[in-house]
């Protein structure tokens, strides 16, 4: 890639525009923390400039630059509408610098809540996967009950897991166990259904191949059927994971004492919309981070597919 392609990009102009906007006088009467915004923007710019020097694929570089450009544009518009011209209600719409400042100030509290949310999600999710996959393998493999199990699964997975929350609260001792229980249910059925349909759809020729090799029963199940069904299993896992976050934050808003849903609900009850928006953005980053890592794992385990 040439120097021009690598470094002379619209994104960097957008960065300059964002900085220039900050030279305008503030119209908002509240503290808008322009310094925090500038620090964050410079931070992003440094990261993408360093990355620009190392990224080899033109497509990846373009993706990174486009995303950064979008972030700069949004920050510019946000900054103009709040701090600079004060066209939005500043009680409901904090300036971008204020949100960034709040994030830095609350980082310990946010860290604890993020860890609590992640811990609960992972616990419910992993327990569900560890039970659903082997069960789906065995039941899908035994043709006798496979058909009935498909219908039963359809019934249970059609119940939106969120409606289990009130019953869960009556049933279980702690609010955390209710969240784990609901996430477990939300993940269990799609993973179970995905595993079963994966097993039922394994190419007959692959099973024949295993048969003529005289592969034992257990080895057939775990070294042939399991990998052959893996992409469908991951489909179920992805579905479970995305529903898990929705459920977790809903559950946390209903009655938890920690977690990101609790953080957002708690401060919006006090009319602290700076922290509400900070919380929303953090949840976005956490979910995207987990999804990214999960996709990496999926791509690694399915690397043998074309």
């Amino acid at each position, binding site marked *: 890639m040439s120097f021009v392609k690598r470094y002379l990009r619209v994104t960097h102009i957008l960065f300059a525009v964002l900085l220039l906007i900050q030279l305008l006088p503030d119209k908002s009467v509240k503290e808008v923390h322009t310094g925090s915004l500038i620090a964050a923007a410079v931070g992003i710019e440094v990261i993408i400039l360093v990355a620009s020097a190392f990224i080899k694929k033109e497509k990846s570089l373009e993706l990174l630059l486009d995303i950064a450009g979008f972030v700069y544009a949004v920050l510019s518009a946000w900054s103009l509408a709040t701090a600079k011209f004060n066209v939005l209600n500043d009680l409901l719409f904090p300036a971008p610098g204020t949100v960034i400042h709040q994030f830095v100030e609350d980082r310990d509290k946010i860290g604890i809540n993020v860890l609590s949310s992640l811990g609960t999600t992972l616990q419910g999710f992993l327990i569900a996967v560890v039970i659903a996959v082997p069960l789906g393998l065995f039941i899908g493999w035994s043709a006798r009950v496979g058909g009935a199990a498909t219908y039963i699964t359809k019934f249970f997975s059609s119940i939106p897991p969120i409606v289990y929350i009130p019953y869960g609260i009556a049933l279980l001792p702690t609010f955390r166990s209710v969240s784990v229980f609901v996430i477990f249910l939300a993940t269990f059925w799609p993973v179970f259904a995905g595993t079963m349909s994966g097993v039922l759809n394994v*190419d007959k*020729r*692959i099973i*024949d*191949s*295993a*048969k*003529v*090799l*005289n*592969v034992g029963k257990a080895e057939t199940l775990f*070294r*042939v059927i399991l*990998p*052959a069904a*893996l992409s469908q299993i991951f489909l179920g896992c992805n579905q479970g994971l995305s529903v898990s976050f929705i459920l977790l934050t809903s559950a946390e808003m209903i009655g938890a004492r920690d977690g990101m849903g609790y953080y957002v609900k708690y401060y919006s009850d006090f009319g602290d919309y700076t922290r509400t928006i900070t919380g929303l953005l953090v949840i976005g980053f956490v979910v995207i981070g987990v999804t990214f890592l999960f996709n990496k794992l999926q791509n690694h385990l399915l*690397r*043998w*597919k*074309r």
Partner: protein
Amino acid sequence: MTTNKIEIKDLTVNYTENKRSFNALTNVSFNVADGEFVSVIGASGCGKSTLLSVLEGLYAPAGGSVKIDGEELHGTGSERGVVFQHYSLFPWMTTKKNIEFGIKQARHDVKRNERSKIADEFLQKVGLGEFGRKYPSQLSGGMQQRAAIARALAMDTQILLMDEPFSAIDAKNRVVLQELLLELWEGDGTEKRKTVVFVTHDIDEAILLSDKIVVLTAHPGTVNEIVNVPFERPRRREELVKTDEYGKFRSRLLALLYNDIAERIGGEEVVL
């Protein structure tokens, strides 16, 4: 005196499709001697692949018997190695892992590091020395079949069953693969040759490779004729195809195949 490795007697096979039962093979009888290479040829729909799935142990016959070393065949067995047209290899294992996995199933006495050595050796033999770490999806169809052959040979089974292994390969590579198989099977004459049953619809392939050709007819699927291939081994394709004998032998086989087809078409015309 040569002993019979495989004895097929009065074999009848039915299969069901949409709850209707069809007759695939009727009264099929022939023997395969120890160390013999036998091809089964016939038009599509004559039941030649069904015959092989019975030998593989994947399909139970309705009548008659199949004996291996004098013992009635029951299901699959580790004395038989199989190469299919598709999906002989597991797509989630690398080429080398596939071969090691095959060895592990067939030869319980071979240790792990020994398996790795044998796998490398057979990858070399089929010209895939550099490709052990690749997944099947990263290989061409021809290379996948090379790997499948490498696995079947590395498993060192007494019997090899091959179900149209080269049918999905382009013409040029098919010739290369036939010659590779011929060379590996014939060996240098010091080792004991494997017993092979090879299903194909390619007459030239059958002549080049086989000691004996079983010609099947369709409707009902049964043996039309069993022909011994009179050409000396080791065979070389370029020399073989130039001879008059080859042309004559080939015409005879063609006639056996086409007479059957002509009779059937004639028969239908009478009905019409």
